């Protein structure tokens, strides 16, 4: 099982023939992901990395039965590429591209309303079901199959936490990067919903940070439905200087109610176990899982 991606995923890459597209598509194929098509306007009819290339996404879907798309299109054209996928009713679209203009993402969200597409990202490291399917650019060598769901806003911190989980003897069902941008596709709430419904997932790690409302929304959701499975959270940025933008576009500490302590308090009240430090997420989860088994 796992969430979002599994053995049945047939991946198509938008912008596959570019430098980044080529490099990462190759990595995904090496990992075992079933890459069935590439889309680059003007390059249809060719083959790249032994994968057929199409001009239009709808054409590629019809010809290959692709059911997920990875988007590596540069920021100035990325919004249009995502909308092309939404209009073709691509079930899953994962966007790695960073620095997309925010109003382009507003346009994407308007196209997404009422559609059949589930969007992950942009500015996401992707989705990984260890040992089965990789869509994205994350480090994969420390990830192991298992039963911990991981969701985050930040790529390198996710790699670190995945590495800690594996070291603690805990594999991962699926890791999802919801992306670092303010306006994005699925959030922590949708991920929690899917992890709670997934029989392969026993517990969930939430890796949050200052800025935005994702953690507050997750807390509200958990209060409403209850922590159906244990959730461990880390919020980075407690000691970031106030009033400064740090890193991610969504990370504006001047935004009201978006500071680390406020987020932690709301999550704690919703029944989430808070990891005391970034280096202790793996051991915190091990304790939580052990307590539950006892």
């Amino acid at each position: 099982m796992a969430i979002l991606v599994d053995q049945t995923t047939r991946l198509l890459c938008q912008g596959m023939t570019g430098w980044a597209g080529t490099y990462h598509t190759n990595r995904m194929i090496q990992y075992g992901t079933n890459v069935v098509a590439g889309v680059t306007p003007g390059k249809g009819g060719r083959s790249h990395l032994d994968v057929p290339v199409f001009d239009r996404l709808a054409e590629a879907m019809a010809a290959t039965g692709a059911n997920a798309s990875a988007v590596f299109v540069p920021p100035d054209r990325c919004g249009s590429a995502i909308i092309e996928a939404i209009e073709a009713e691509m079930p899953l679209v994962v966007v790695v591209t960073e620095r997309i203009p925010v109003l382009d993402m507003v346009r994407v969200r308007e196209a997404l309303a009422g559609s059949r597409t589930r969007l992950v990202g942009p500015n996401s490291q992707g989705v990984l079901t260890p040992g089965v399917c990789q869509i994205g650019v994350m480090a994969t060598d420390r990830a192991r199959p298992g039963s911990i769901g991981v969701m985050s806003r930040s790529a390198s911190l996710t790699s670190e936490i995945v590495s800690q989980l594996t070291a603690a003897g805990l594999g991962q069902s699926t890791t999802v990067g919801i992306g670092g941008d303010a306006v994005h596709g699925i959030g922590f709430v949708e991920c929690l919903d899917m992890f709670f419904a997934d029989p392969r997932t026993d517990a969930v790690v939430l890796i949050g940070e200052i800025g935005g409302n994702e953690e507050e929304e997750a807390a509200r959701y958990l209060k409403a439905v209850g922590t159906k499975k244990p959730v461990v959270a880390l919020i980075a940025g407690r000691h970031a200087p106030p009033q400064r933008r740090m890193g991610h576009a969504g990370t504006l500490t001047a935004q009201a109610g978006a500071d680390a302590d406020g987020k932690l308090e709301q999550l704690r009240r919703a029944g989430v176990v808070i990891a005391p430090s970034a280096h202790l997420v793996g051991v915190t989860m091990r304790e939580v899982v052990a307590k539950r088994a006892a």
Partner: protein
Amino acid sequence: MELHEFQAKSLLSRYAIASPKGQVALTPDEAELAARDCGSRALFVKAQVQAGDRAQAGGVIRAASAAETRLAAAQLLGRKLVTAQTGRRGHTIKRVLVETGVAAVREFYVAMRIDALAGGLELLAGTGGTGIEARAAALPSAIESVPFGLAGERHPGDTMKLCERIGLAGDTADKFRAVVDSIHRAFVDNDASLIEINPLALTGDGEFVALDAKLVLDDNALFRHPDLAALRDDDVVDEIELEAQRHQINFVQMDGDIGVVVNGAGLGLATLDMLRAAGGSPANFMDIRTTAKSLDIAHGIGLVLDKPHIKVLLVNVFGGGMQPCDTIIEGLGIAFRRKGRVLPVVLRVTGNNEQLARLRLANFNFPKIECSDMWQAVERAVAIARGRT
């Protein structure tokens, strides 16, 4: 990227949003001439710095004549203005805006911004003007919110209802809605991420005038607006932070003695948290973007090495697919070679291509302390900074 008040008002005037008659001045002479042009006995001389709370900090001076305007300008120009929003270093006043005073019958707060969660735009409006931040903090309902999309209101009629709630009717309500419509068009046309008019004055003649305006543009969309990109005032941004930006590195200056090199925003924030928890004091925040090449990284690390008071460099890297470890270590080596500085370096380098990175590292002759986990690295760096090696 934020515009100065005079630039924001000029841009908004293209959308038929009125502001008081005025002119920007770089010298007291120019300010005096501007005052004569205004032809009024009620004048305001306003420091053009990109920070709120200017008036409270003494950045706005009233003048009753051209001569007084000249004095006020002389008093402001070249001075450092420190407001609640500038930080301790403050901003140097390089320009003043000389404006005719406008008598307001009522004042309003109007703004448009991105609503990240809804994935759209949001109109914010309320009565009153100056001091809205404090009032809204005390009473969130002081500011009303109306959802907007790219084409306009999400629910037609919302702005009209908002007008009723804030006590506007008839012709005045129509004019208010015209201002809102202009703000929305200016927002979408120019890829803004915030437009704020505070206060928006309603005059005795029943006209709306923007007494102050703030406009923030989306940096990621500036490629579509070269004319606006050219307005960037590099003086208002920290020189070193700007230099880092040019090399694909997010950098924030701090005042500690531990230089920090990290890839990724989340890991960067987590590293600061751990340093503080271990009793250390970081000299900077660093997030090497995945698009940075080794020469960019060398440049960014060079900026840290330029800080004379740092005692140790902490490198916390988790290499991913976009940016393997060896790229960052290569940048580190180049930076040390260029700067010729001798400084202990505590490294935690793991992830993609970590073996290759370790091979590279063996060629560098700066003092290295390698750690296998990040907490150990943080503790070592703090110990070195405190002279406990």
